[in-house]
Structure formats: structure tokens, C-alpha cells
């Protein structure tokens, strides 16, 4: 009888600890995933990591993209038309251990680059908070938050950050005010 009571007590204490844990922001495990070809998105990813901590993961494709901008745009158009799902070099090994996942990408042809489709379709974001951020040439988020909501239906997707490729000197202040708005 004594044992049963002790077990019951342990369950209450243990249970309340489990409930209490996620409420502490510091306990949230953060991952910053990004896809970057010219380095702008990487810059934003690094700045987010500097401000909130967490781990970094770079999405890389098996087949590399053209480095010349014009060629890259034409190539990306072909991929978009063909609905290609480019193979990725690696999967995130321990995605289940993260609570919050920042996902960064450039806007290509007013939407996500095709490798992001491969990425979302090959990982489960169930129960996680996904926070998109993008770099762009004037289109801003261009509806990609809605696209991500569809690709990760069981995740909580928060409002995204859009950084213009022409205003990279403002990355730090933009990230700061965005995180404040997200109450992160």
C-alpha cells in the first residue's frame, strides 16, 4: 500500500514536471535549417543562430546548381515546370529532438526552390513549430508561408521574415525586430 502511494506521488511530481518543462523557453531545442546558393540566406541563418542559439543544418542537393545568376534562374524555371524533387545530400539525423525549426530559403520564381519541396516531403514536422524566413529580390515571402503550411500540415507555422537581397546590411536589426514580434 505504501508503495502504491509512493508511486502515485512520483507520478504527480513527475507529471507536473513534464507539463512544466515546455513552458520554459530556454528548454526549447532549436534548429535552423537553410538552403543557400549565393550566401545571403546563410547570412540570415547565422544571424538567427547568433541571437537565439540552436543548431544549424544546411540543405544541400546532390546535383549542384549553376553559379551564374542568369543560368541559375533558367535552370530553376526548368525544375519548377517539371515539378522536380532534387535529391538531397543528407537528411536531418535527429529531427525528432527539436521543438522549433527555423527554415530559410531564397525565393525562386515567386515560390520555394524545388529542394525545399523535397525537404518538407521527406521530413515530418508533426507537433513542431516551423518558422520560415526568406531572402528575395522584391517579391518578399510571396505566399511561401501558405505553401509551407500545406507541406507541413501538422506543424504550427509562424509568420515569416523576408529579407531583401539588396538590404543585407539591415539583417541584424531585421532579425531582432522580427524575433521580438514572434515573442521568441
Amino acid at each position, binding site marked *: 500500500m505504501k508503495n502504491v502511494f509512493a508511486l502515485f506521488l512520483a507520478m504527480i511530481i513527475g507529471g507536473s514536471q513534464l507539463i512544466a518543462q515546455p513552458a520554459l523557453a530556454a528548454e526549447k531545442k532549436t534548429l535552423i535549417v537553410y538552403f543557400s546558393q549565393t550566401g545571403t540566406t546563410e547570412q540570415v541563418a547565422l544571424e538567427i543562430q547568433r541571437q537565439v542559439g540552436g543548431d544549424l543544418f544546411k540543405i544541400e542537393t546532390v546535383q549542384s546548381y549553376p553559379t551564374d545568376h*542568369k543560368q541559375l534562374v533558367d535552370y530553376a*524555371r526548368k525544375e519548377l515546370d517539371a515539378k522536380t524533387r532534387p535529391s538531397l545530400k543528407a537528411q536531418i539525423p535527429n529531427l525528432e529532438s527539436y521543438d522549433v525549426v527555423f527554415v530559410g530559403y531564397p525565393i525562386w520564381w*515567386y515560390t520555394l526552390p524545388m529542394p525545399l519541396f523535397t525537404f518538407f516531403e521527406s521530413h515530418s514536422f508533426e507537433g513542431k513549430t516551423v518558422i520560415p524566413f526568406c531572402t528575395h529580390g*522584391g517579391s518578399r515571402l*510571396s*505566399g511561401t508561408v*501558405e505553401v509551407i503550411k500545406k507541406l507541413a500540415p501538422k506543424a504550427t507555422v509562424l509568420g515569416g521574415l523576408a529579407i531583401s537581397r539588396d538590404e543585407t546590411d539591415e539583417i541584424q536589426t531585421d532579425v531582432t525586430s522580427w524575433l521580438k514580434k514572434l515573442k521568441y
Partner: protein
Amino acid sequence: MRFAMLRTGIYGVMSMMLLVLMGHHISGAFAHQWLAAGIFLLFAVHMGSHWAWLQNLPRGRYTAIRFVKMVITIVTAMLAVTLLVSGVLMSPIRYLFAFLPIAEQTDVARTLHHYLSYWFFIMIALHIGTHWKRLRKKLSIDTSRKLQPVVVLFATLIAINGAYAFVRREIYRYVFFINPYSFFDYEEHPLFFFLDYISILYLFAGVAALASSPQTRQQLLTD
């Protein structure tokens, strides 16, 4: 009269199609391409039915207004063709033209299509504006004197909203080749998008209508 009404009805439909074409994010790519094909067909009919105008171009005396109207019409037509070609060169059917040296220039096609679409929108507004009086006459629209202040008030409000939208939506940055990509606001209700674009169309058409009507210009000069 009945024919004029049918014709004007088609102009109305074309204007609405144009407004939807400006909202690529609202229609989506698929509807955009089919609407574009449809409006181009109507453009072809429009040009065909105005063949006499083309034949009469070398004839008669050229006043400043006639000259400006002609330039607007020709530039608008040229823009329409450029938008069709650049649109096709980005669309999935561009593979049909793979034999052309320009077939894989999707980046160039997109940039042209982006900038010129806003120019086209404004040129269409000017084209409508410079023909507004003729349209009114054909439809025998006559605003009664009593209603005139109300019409003027509404017209002014729409035009002011048009000017505001032109700046707020940063369309001037597209027109002056500053922003190479459009910002499409997916969070905004389409109604606000269309109201603003109607206002912009109205603003440019109104300015053109005022500028091309001899009476109004005389009034402005003598007042």
C-alpha cells in the same frame, strides 16, 4: 446602338480580364495563362475590327491629339505582343518554340514581362481615357446637370485612391525599372487589390480623358 453596347460590353470584359491578369497571385499561373490567351484573342478581334483605323493612318491632317492617340494605341499594341511573347517564353508551352534562339531565356522573359505588364496597364488606361468621349457618345451617356457634382466627387475620390495606391503598392518602382520582382500580398483580401487597381486604371484614364478633350482643356486654360 445595340452593336455599340455589345462592343462596349466586350471592352468591359477585357478590362476585367486585365485586372485579374494583374493579380497573378490571386488567379494562379494556370488561370493567368488561359486568361492571357483569351484576352489576346479578343485583342486580335479588336485590332481586326479597327482595320479601317490602320488604313486611315496615312490620311488626313494630324492634330496633336490625334498624334498622341495614335502613339498610345501603337505602343499599347506593341506592349501586348511583347507580353504575349515573353509570357509564352516562361510558360510550359515554350518547349514548342525550342528551335528559336530565345527559347531558353526565361530570366530575360520574366524581367520583361514584369516591367512591361505595369507599363501595359497604364497604357491601356490612357488608351481608354483618350477614347472615353467617343465611347460616351456611342452609348449616348449623358450625365444630368443635377448629378454632375456627385459624379465629379466620386471621380475625384477614386482618382485620389488611385494615386495613393500607385505609391503605396510601389507600382512606380516597377514602372521606373527599380524593383525587378512584384510583391504579391497573399494576406490581403483580393477585393482591396481589385479596388486599388480599378482606381489606378481610373486615375490614368481620367487624366487622359481630361487632357484629350478640347473643352476641358480650354476650361483649364481660361479659368
